[in-house]
């Protein structure tokens, strides 16, 4: 097994495991995750989602939008010889919208509206006149942008540009894209052979800043707290409380927040990457217990940690998730390896 293959598979596996394990805990706060799902303790494994969650009715191990969108996007990009184009990004979203098991319960507000626009279907346009779109600064760009990192290993600037191409299709918003570029740049660096955790953080901050500045002139107006500043805050928490699990989760959920907004979920994922020192399963267990948008935080943290650490020890998870979702995760990783090697 090559290092390249290991890191590609690690990122894919980290995203998939985080998403599948996080889906039952999504929307709840930590104390109710423990009480209702973990039997009084933290959740550390797959569960069948309860009826009062977004994933109600899904079997144990089914992923949500985070990994399914990423997977279909990577497949499309692989067919383009590893190039990220607007057309391929659109094709992936349109294909994704035909998967009822993911689309019906898990299309986020921003992606859903954009897909309707792309299809020429009616959508709610009553707020289109406003100078900024206050509802589009969401984490749906950050959740899939690690793909742009994996296809541009070692090239942060290209990863940033590609993340904008890939995510602007659904998230025409500088805050959402700043978060996406942070994840893309961090992943592109993390997957290099001798990457360090400090380097991943630095790449993420660079991506957030560059992504914001590059997106601002080409997107519809946006307003909200800074992804870059909130990453710094989350990393401080990851540094301070890596030896105190309870406190780590409390500080991250209470201060940074882990919700739908791009300036919450993505910074929190960076905080957990640091706290877990890049270990995939550790970062996922933190993320799925922190509350709110747990599956997205876990998917992003898992993908970045997987790009950093590789897929060692994750085989049984990959097998389980591939089976439940009817995905060919290992095969796609192999295809991507050969595509990237040829580039």
């Amino acid at each position, binding site marked *: 097994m090559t290092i390249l293959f290991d890191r590609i598979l690690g990122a894919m596996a980290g995203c998939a495991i985080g998403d599948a394990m996080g889906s039952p805990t999504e*929307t*709840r*706060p*930590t104390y*109710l995750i423990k009480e209702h799902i973990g039997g009084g303790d933290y959740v550390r494994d797959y569960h069948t989602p*309860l*009826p*009062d*969650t*977004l994933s*109600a009715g899904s079997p144990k191990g089914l992923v949500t939008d985070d990994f399914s969108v990423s997977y279909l996007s990577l497949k499309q990009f692989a067919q383009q010889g590893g190039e990220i184009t607007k057309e391929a990004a659109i094709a992936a979203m349109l294909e994704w919208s035909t998967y009822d098991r993911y689309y*019906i*319960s898990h299309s986020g507000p921003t992606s859903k509206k954009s897909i309707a626009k792309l299809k020429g279907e009616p959508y709610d346009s009553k707020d289109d*006149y*406003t*100078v*900024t779109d*206050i509802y589009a600064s969401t984490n749906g760009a950050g959740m899939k942008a690690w793909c742009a990192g994996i296809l541009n290993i070692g090239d942060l600037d290209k990863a940033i540009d590609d993340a904008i191409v890939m995510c602007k299709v659904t998230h025409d918003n500088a805050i959402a894209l700043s978060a996406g570029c942070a994840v893309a740049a961090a992943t592109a660096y993390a997957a290099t052979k001798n990457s360090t955790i400090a380097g991943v953080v630095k790449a993420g901050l660079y991506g957030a800043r560059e992504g914001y500045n590059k997106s601002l002139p080409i997107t519809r*107006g*946006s*307003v*909200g*707290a*800074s992804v870059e*500043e*909130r990453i710094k*805050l989350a990393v401080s928490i990851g540094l301070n409380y890596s030896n105190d699990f309870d406190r780590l989760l409390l*500080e991250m*959920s*209470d*201060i*940074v*927040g*882990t*919700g*739908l*907004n791009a*300036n*919450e979920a993505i910074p929190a994922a960076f905080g957990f990457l640091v706290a877990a020192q890049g270990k995939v399963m550790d970062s996922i267990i933190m993320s799925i217990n922190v*509350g*709110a948008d747990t599956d997205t935080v876990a998917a992003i943290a898992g993908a970045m940690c997987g790009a950093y650490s590789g897929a060692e020890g994750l085989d049984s998870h990959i097998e389980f998730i591939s089976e439940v979702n009817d995905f060919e995760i290992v095969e796609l990783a192999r295809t991507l390896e050969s595509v990237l090697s040829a580039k």
Partner: protein
Amino acid sequence: MSTRISKILGGFLAAAIGDAMGAATEIRTTEMIKDYFGGYVKEIINPPEDTWAHGTKAGMVTDDFSISFFSAEEICKAGGQVTEEVALKALMRWSEAPQYSRFCGPTTLNALKRIKGEEVPKTKHDRLLCVNSRASNGAPMKVGSIGLFNAGDVDKAIDDAIILCKITHDNTTALSGAAAIAAATARAMDDRVSWCEVVQAGIYGAREGFERAKLIARPVATASVERRINLAVEVGMRNQGDWEKAMVELSQIIGGGLPAAEAVPAAFGYIVACEGDPMQTLYMAVNAGDDTDTVGCMVGYIVGALGGIDKLPMKYLYKIEQMNGFDLQGISKSIDNLLDKRESNEIGGKI
């Protein structure tokens, strides 16, 4: 004018100024505000066409102050008692004033429909235990006057804030935010009080509001109003004396948007950064970007009560009263009379 009437009227007027001034800057960033208006906005002006308040004339308030004022009127009619019935009356009357209720936020809008028995469109969120998007600033925006009615009584202000808001915002985070604003305003009504005690009361209100709401309201998973106030206080302290830097850091780190866990902490950050100076605090709320009119209204109640009417431009009193047909001076006298009665009853009771 007694100190107490001055503080009550100051609370109402500053809140109305914050709302009316912020109506023009709402949903823009600080950079966009400077570009579009050619500098910071420090006057009440007509809102641009590309914002929620388009078509509103300078001096008219939006949903924030109007719902808080209608609530205050209903509470007055009920002799100062805050009940669910009073809250409902205010909400229904407000919903029939389209010049204000056309701004209605998402959480209030659906609650109104439910209360009126109208059909609420079904969504996949209906089955959720925790509807985190309802943890919005629509609760804290309407409770400032609760602090005026409960001058000096922080604990009663917290209870009343929860009663007033629970009909639309039945969740722990929104109610925690509401309790913080009501508690801080109640404390600001005291004599010989500074911004320090007011901020402390706000933090107490956020915590107590959360704990009390947890027993009766629905759970949500969001950032903590209390912990984010702690952070905003630190950012504000670090930047006292540098108005612009304080504002930029607070909007970058804390944010000032629709979630209660952004708008309420931001309000306290501005108070600390401006050391409670009413107009400087309002200018910061108006120019920090995002949900400026809501934060302006909430923080206005607090700093207006803290500083009293003498710290505010009188020209705005006439403008707000005239443009909205609100009798701010009249209601202030009524509340002062109610407080007089409460005091004499308490003295009578003790004898």
